């Protein structure tokens, strides 16, 4: 009951603060000529005003997991923002009753560490807390988890002109550690990296090759994520987290003016990560651009 009240209060405060926001401008992850789309399997490196929802479906050893995730991020100052996120899961397995429910709610804070326009480099520090007992009974956990994170992006726009067709390339990545409040639960190291080729960048800054809609707004991308237990052997072993698990996600993100759409395959990175290809689809609304004078603006500055 107390958690529900806190969540309600938090949402109310964020909505009220957003409505009171003065007109000012900041961006989603933009560094110089480079726009980094929001990656779908790990955080992008920009402090922004955005609402995103992703749906994923994976199957491993007969167990099918469907996940619908929601996240909302709000800038407080041009370089500092808060976020709230949760997701709903459906789990089906042969011979077992189906399970479904909300995961714990995660609240977070992020700071834009640097933005270097000429070198298309951007970095962000974040800290999140997944709140204990804040989801559905039976599907959530009774401990909280603190997760510090660093995310970065680097465009290849400063490559020599002799290799101009490599300039639309960019990489982005994020690394974080999950530190549960329950010492019997394992600490997990999570990292993700993406390689992306921006067609908008190609056509606007290198060579207009004449691609029209919808291809002119596409960013082919490969995301690679891994998670590994970094606690003592006994804690890792008792949690069954001895193996690295993750996926390789090839796909494409369509970057529009006010939102982006993405679809990626989820290919298990190793045997421990599963034995079926999953799918990940998502939409990310750029509130900076949709509502630049209200919800999409920082509250201060």
């Amino acid at each position, binding site marked *: 009951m107390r958690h*529900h009240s806190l969540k309600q209060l938090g949402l109310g405060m964020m909505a009220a603060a957003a409505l009171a926001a003065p*007109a000012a*401008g900041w961006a989603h992850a933009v560094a110089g000529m480079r726009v980094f789309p929001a990656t779908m399997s790990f955080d992008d490196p920009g402090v922004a005003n955005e609402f995103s929802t992703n749906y994923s479906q994976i199957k491993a050893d007969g167990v099918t997991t469907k996940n619908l995730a929601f996240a909302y991020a709000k800038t407080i100052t041009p370089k500092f923002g808060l976020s709230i996120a949760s997701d709903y899961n459906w789990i089906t397995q042969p011979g077992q009753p189906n399970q479904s429910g*909300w995961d714990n709610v995660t609240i977070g804070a992020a700071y834009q560490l640097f933005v270097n326009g000429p070198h298309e480099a951007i970095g962000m520090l974040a800290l999140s807390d997944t709140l204990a007992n804040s989801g559905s009974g039976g599907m959530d956990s009774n401990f909280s988890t603190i997760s510090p994170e660093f995310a970065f992006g680097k465009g290849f726009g400063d490559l020599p002109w002799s290799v101009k067709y490599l300039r639309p390339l960019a990489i982005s990545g994020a690394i974080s550690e999950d530190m549960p409040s329950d010492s019997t639960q394992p600490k997990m190291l999570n990292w993700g990296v993406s390689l992306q080729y921006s067609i908008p960048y190609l*056509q606007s*800054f290198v060579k207009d090759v004449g691609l029209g809609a919808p291809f002119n707004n596409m960013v082919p991308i490969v995301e690679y994520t891994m998670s590994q237990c970094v606690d003592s052997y006994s804690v890792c072993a008792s949690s069954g987290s001895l193996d690295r698990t993750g996926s390789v996600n090839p796909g494409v993100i369509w970057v529009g003016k006010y939102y982006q759409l993405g679809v990626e395959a989820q290919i298990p990175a190793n045997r421990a990560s599963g034995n079926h290809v999953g799918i990940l689809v998502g939409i990310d609304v750029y509130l900076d*651009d949709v509502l*630049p004078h209200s919800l999409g603006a920082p509250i201060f500055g």
Partner: protein
Amino acid sequence: MLRVLKRLGVVLGLLAGLAVSLPAWAHAFPVKSSPQVGASVASAPKQVRIWFDADLNALFSKISVVNSAGQVVSTGGAHVPAGHPRLLETAVKPLPAGQYWVKWSVVARDGHHTEGKFPFHVG
């Protein structure tokens, strides 16, 4: 669960309502240009134009053209023509054959800044 869904519904409804009721401008990104990005043109252009996907703040929008030695060959500064708030243009001197770079920096009506540069070749 229902309570969480209701709250999400309220937030989404709020976003949708604001999206309908307020004007949206957003970052200004180039849509096309003349000469085209990376093009080789036989005859030198008399002006360089870039069309954007959002209205520009003329006061803070700039464009210049430089040659391969870095010398400015555009004249008269940046111009957003009346009635064409998404067009940025500048005149250029008579250009001999060679490589040129167009550098632009614009501020959209909502205050968002974007910038870029692209080449074209004459001859």
